[in-house]
């Protein structure tokens, strides 16, 4: 039993910590969110220079051979900084789909660019009706003379507007919710028939509706095995779950620190509000919720790294805890900051928003509680 990081992991953590604390201040982030692109290309280029975009890929693919522990270490720091650059969309989602699909041609075409940061990607995991069911795919791909013809609607696709490649699961066989018959396609930006309707998200990122109308693709646009993409999507989702949960734990840690700090400084009735026992106990609850969630995060990361047979159960336990504790910590942090907590000026509001939205990503607390209980 060992909960400590190895030397490389500790170095990785230091590198992110230094960057987030030293170069990712909140006002700059705020300005970048408000910019036309919605994030900073320069900052993202630095992520690549520092090697972070290479971490999850194998050495053979030009990566650094990192696994779930490394992913966790990075995403926790991204949570602390509320990072809005498209690392998650491009590396954790699209990059992982390329890795798990194991398609050499597609990797050769896209991976080098994703890793050096010159390109970004997106993965279209959701449709308007799919809720948390990965197999609920109505987008259809039919064989045509040249290869494939795709029609459908993908919902809330992170980074879709600016991605150089959008990976799109489509139904090539069977009915709407069948587990078999889903195939993954790689669509380069600007593919005729594909339009995006972009918008910012409430938690400071960029997403788009992706509409596919008779999109003609060559036969080699298929990524991995025809009809067999669900296993890839499930593998990607495991990593995505771990990633957003690590991000959530980073946010929780910041909210607990900031709330305790504020309560020591804000004076009402001649005392710091932290002197009032009713508030002290609530901050103790926040602290306990954060620590309990962190424990499940470590457990799930180690199970995913070890390829444990019960990894899905572990991830469901974690995601449930993140939803439940995140709600409590976020709401309490805002409440204890009083009116300031509901202003755009204070960073706490933004941490609260992101933490809230993480519950709705890849299955909310209820969904994962049901999955754990099944």
């Amino acid at each position, binding site marked *: 039993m060992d909960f400590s990081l190895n030397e490389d992991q500790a170095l990785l953590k230091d590198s992110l910590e230094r960057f987030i604390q030293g170069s990712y201040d909140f006002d700059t982030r705020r300005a970048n969110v408000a910019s036309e692109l919605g994030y900073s290309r320069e900052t993202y280029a630095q992520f690549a220079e520092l090697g972070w975009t290479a971490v999850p890929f194998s050495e053979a693919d030009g990566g650094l051979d990192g696994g779930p522990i490394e992913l966790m270490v990075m995403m926790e720091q991204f949570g602390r900084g509320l990072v809005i650059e498209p690392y998650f969309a491009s590396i954790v989602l699209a990059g992982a789909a390329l890795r798990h699909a194991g398609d050499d041609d597609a990797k050769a075409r896209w991976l080098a660019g994703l890793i050096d940061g010159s390109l970004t990607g997106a993965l279209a995991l*959701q*449709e*308007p*009706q*799919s*809720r948390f069911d990965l197999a*609920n795919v*109505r987008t259809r791909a039919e064989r045509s003379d040249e290869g494939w013809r795709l029609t459908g609607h993908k*919902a*809330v696709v992170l980074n879709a507007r600016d991605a150089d490649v959008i990976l799109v699961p489509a139904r090539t066989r069977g009915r*709407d919710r069948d587990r078999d018959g889903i195939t993954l396609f790689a669509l380069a930006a600007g593919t005729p028939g594909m339009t995006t*309707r972009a*918008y*910012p*998200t*409430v*938690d400071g990122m960029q*997403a788009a*509706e992706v509409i596919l109308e008779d999109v003609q693709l060559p036969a080699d646009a298929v990524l991995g095995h025809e009809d067999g993409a669900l296993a890839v999507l499930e593998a990607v989702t495991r990593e995505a779950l771990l990633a957003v949960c690590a991000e959530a734990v980073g946010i929780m840690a910041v909210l607990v620190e900031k709330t305790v700090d504020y309560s020591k400084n804000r*004076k*009402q*009735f001649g005392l710091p509000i932290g002197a009032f026992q*009713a*508030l002290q106990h609530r901050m103790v609850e926040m602290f306990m919720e954060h620590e309990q969630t962190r424990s499940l995060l470590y457990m799930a990361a180690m199970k995913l790294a070890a390829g444990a047979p019960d990894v899905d159960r572990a991830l469901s336990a974690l995601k449930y805890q993140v939803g439940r504790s995140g*709600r409590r910590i976020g*709401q309490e942090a*805002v*409440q204890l900051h*009083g*009116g300031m*907590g*509901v*202003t*755009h*000026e204070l960073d706490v*509001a933004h941490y*609260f*928003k992101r933490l*809230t*939205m993480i519950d*709705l990503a890849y299955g*909310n607390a*209820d969904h994962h*509680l*049901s999955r754990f209980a099944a």
Partner: protein
Amino acid sequence: MDLNFSDADLAFREEVREFLRNEYPADIREKMDRGIRLARDDFMRWQQTLHARGWAAPNWPVEHGGTGWSATQKYIFTTELALANTPTIMPFGLSMVGPVIYTYGNEEQKARFLPDILASRAWWCQGYSEPGAGSDLASLKTRAERDGDHYVINGTKTWTTLGQFADWIFLLARTSTDVSRKQEGISFILADMRTPGISLRPIITIDGEHEVNEVHFENVRVPVENLVGEEGRGWTYGKVLLQHERAGIAAVARSKYRLDTLKRLAAEAPPGGTPLMDDPVFRRKVAAVEIELLALEYTDLRTLAAVATGGAPGPESSILKIKGTEVQQAIDELYVEAAGCYAFAFTPELFASPDIPDATRIGPPWAADTAPHYFNGRKVSIYGGTNEIQKNIIAKAVLGL
């Protein structure tokens, strides 16, 4: 015990419903039903519509333009307005400063201010909280110093809701520091927002909206005739005003409307999807909130019945603010959950004007506003005396602790 309204009350309810069917302006109704932001004029026009019928100020004494309704009639009126999804009546004039003026003001002030408040010709805002005085309001520092026929006001007020629309502000300011208790030496003063030296700084709220402001007073000269009541007694008047802010804060009818609407929306699903209301887990969550709301409704009715039979509200009335805001926030959360992935879309510009068709919105037309609404709604357990302060009051005043 009797759960039913009298025949006369039922007839009154029909009268209110008929008024709403005929007089609620169609364009404002459309904005409300589609979740489109209201303009200053929309609020004013709706209140003027009520005034034209003589229903602008049910709580005021008849001699100042009140309706003379029974407690039950007031309850029915408020309920029907909420169930018809009418705009919130801005409380600053009609519910807050109006009662202070007719209770403590002199005849000249009543004649000067009350008609414009009643007719919604003037928009009022409030100057209570300060950056250093929130829950501990009595520690406020804004000064009003006498200089001949004027007070000279210096200081900063905050959380001034829609101050950018206001013609007048009422504020609590310190007229004396030579006091034994900090609640003494505070005065209740009215100021024209056009007075030189008053400036507004917008505070953008968590949902990206300009809803509240800081109001700065720099050597603002206000005539002494704008002092309400006696100098140094403002704290007493202000407490009366805050009680008016608390009344109706349970918002039972509005929560019922929101919850019923949610149940209808969650029963729908896009092609190929499953309605969320078919999910037993979600149904149970909705049911739990509905039961909490039902309990709140009957707590509210118990208070109403006590007042209607000539008594005073019982201790149960003290929980209305806490439970009412908890229910509002729980409903806000259910909306976000129901919106699913479309709760992520942040598109306030698509909710700016009725000319923008619903079809341009992202996801179901109601979904994209759910998260901002939830985020903003965290304020309801903070304003009007935080729920923590409310519990302190109950502990002291009700439980005698």
